């Protein structure tokens, strides 16, 4: 601690070294990304970090590590010539770093996505956007799982299990506005458990059981699709946009890793 302070003080006098120190200090937090994850998910592709494409909102302190609200906001509108194709969420130090990849179309209106994630550790979460021209850009945010007695597991898994597959859409208000982005929320009930092999304490075996695919369409046209993993909270929740041109049906199709499929449709009117 003291040593760090001295180093920093020294660096303050030498601007060039200050920069080097920041890079070094950030090295720890970014080690998993730099050494393994970047290559694993994006190979040698270059990733812009200027923050011009998307913004990431995550709390510095995860109040409930089982339910951390995280949102990504697009800084550009979705047009047919220029749009965000995919946003990938990676939580560096989770047991399974890949949280989700969301795919958008020009019809999504806005490539915004909000969801609730589990955080197992003190870690960076990063959102990587890929635009239709194949360019990548990344923003990140550091999250501290909070203290106390909480754990990144659902509070009442049996309740989630009992209503597994139940879904609903929630619109911003009762009616949709035509030809403009409308925000909607998809709620999916699913226990989303990571499972365990022959646990030493309970002598129980519990296979992992979580949602791994989500597709949302409006009148048959895709609005949002996603591959997801165990970092999704129990009862996964997604907030996003779609652009309706007339009354119709929102449809959600969800699959889990045990091969179960669920679907749900809801009529919406202007």
């Amino acid at each position, binding site marked *: 601690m003291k040593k760090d302070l001295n180093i920093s003080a020294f660096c303050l006098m030498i601007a060039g070294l200050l920069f080097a120190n920041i890079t070094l200090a950030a090295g720890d937090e970014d080690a998993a990304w730099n050494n393994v994850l970047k290559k694993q998910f994006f190979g040698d592709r270059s990733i812009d970090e200027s923050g011009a494409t998307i913004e990431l909102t995550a709390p510095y302190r995860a109040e*409930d590590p089982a*339910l951390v609200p995280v949102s990504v906001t697009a800084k550009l509108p979705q047009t047919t010539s220029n749009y965000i194709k995919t946003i990938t969420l990676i939580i560096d130090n989770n047991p399974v770093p890949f949280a989700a990849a969301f795919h958008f179309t020009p019809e999504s209106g806005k490539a915004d996505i909000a969801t609730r994630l589990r955080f197992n550790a003190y870690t960076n979460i990063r959102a990587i956007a890929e635009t239709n021209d194949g360019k990548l850009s990344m923003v990140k945010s550091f999250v501290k799982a909070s*203290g106390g007695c909480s754990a990144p597991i659902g509070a*009442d898994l049996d309740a989630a299990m009992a209503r597994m597959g139940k879904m609903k859409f929630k619109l911003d208000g009762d009616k949709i506005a035509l030809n403009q982005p409308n925000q909607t929320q998809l709620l999916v009930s699913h226990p989303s458990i990571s499972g365990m092999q022959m646990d030493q304490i*309970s002598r*129980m075996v*519990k296979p992992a059981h979580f949602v791994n695919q989500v597709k949302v369409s409006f009148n048959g046209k895709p609005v949002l699709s996603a591959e997801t993993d165990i970092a999704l909270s129990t*009862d996964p929740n997604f907030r996003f946009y779609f652009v309706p041109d007339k009354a119709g049906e929102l449809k959600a199709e969800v699959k889990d890793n045990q091969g179960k499929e669920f679907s749900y449709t809801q009529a919406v009117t202007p």
Partner: protein
Amino acid sequence: MFEKLSIFAAFLAILMPFTQSKAEQLNLQEVAPGVFVHQGIHAMPNRQNHGEIANIGFIVGEQCVAVIDTGGSPAQGRALDAAITEKTKVPVCYVINTHVHPDHLYGNSAFKRAGVSFIGHRKLAQAMAVRAPYYLEKAGRDLGLGLKQEDFIAPDRTVDSTLELDLGGRKLTLTAHGPAHTDNDLTVFDDKTRTLWLSDLLFIGHLPVIDGSLTGWLRELSKLTKIDAKLAIPGHGPVSSEWPKAAEAETRYLEMLRSEIRAYIKQGKTMEQAMAEVGQSARGDWQLFDDFHKRNIATSFAELEWED
């Protein structure tokens, strides 16, 4: 270094009269004949208190002692064991774990020996198993405790709905509750003194922490408050001779959360909005409000949005 430690110890002694001294001697009160309670402190578990923050204790019969929660660390468990030996010659036959939280059961290993039966809710073992990997990492990082899976000790006897234990001239009734503070809460009723040991189904002073079900907790409270008890022992806070009055503040807080969050959900507001805004006026009523209030909102919001 030494000097610093003793200043710190003195500081602790002033602030926390009920906490144990450095020699791991446990401060105990006999709150009713044969009912001993160590009152914890209102603090977040950390490296200074090693997670030794909860109320723990034991009940003495003619043939058996039943330990009710073993403490926040193996050292506190050993201190409790030593304190029991000091108070009585009657051996420990039972360890009752009221729920999965580490501040209540990390002392378990101190009692693992022949003749001691561990008792818990039917869902306790599962809760231990799914939480252990995370809790163990946290114990190392935040509490300075090097613990292993073996320190948890799953119950060898489970409670489905109720279980009676005869301590010799004294009957304890254990009740397994539906999801409330956690999904594996047990309460203990001592017939002889009409003492209701609620553990974390009752918080006094320390903000209630929801890690099970908000509506479930209110449901269990409406049943528990009908019990004709002379003494109520909370998991955090002072022992109370006024039951069910002792549950009023907690009930008020939980009801406030339920009604405000329901209104937010009805208005189409988000979990993030609720976390920032709901129930801020209750801050002055509770300790550790800023540590737990927002998480209570998050977990309650996720529960209540499935109500309709």
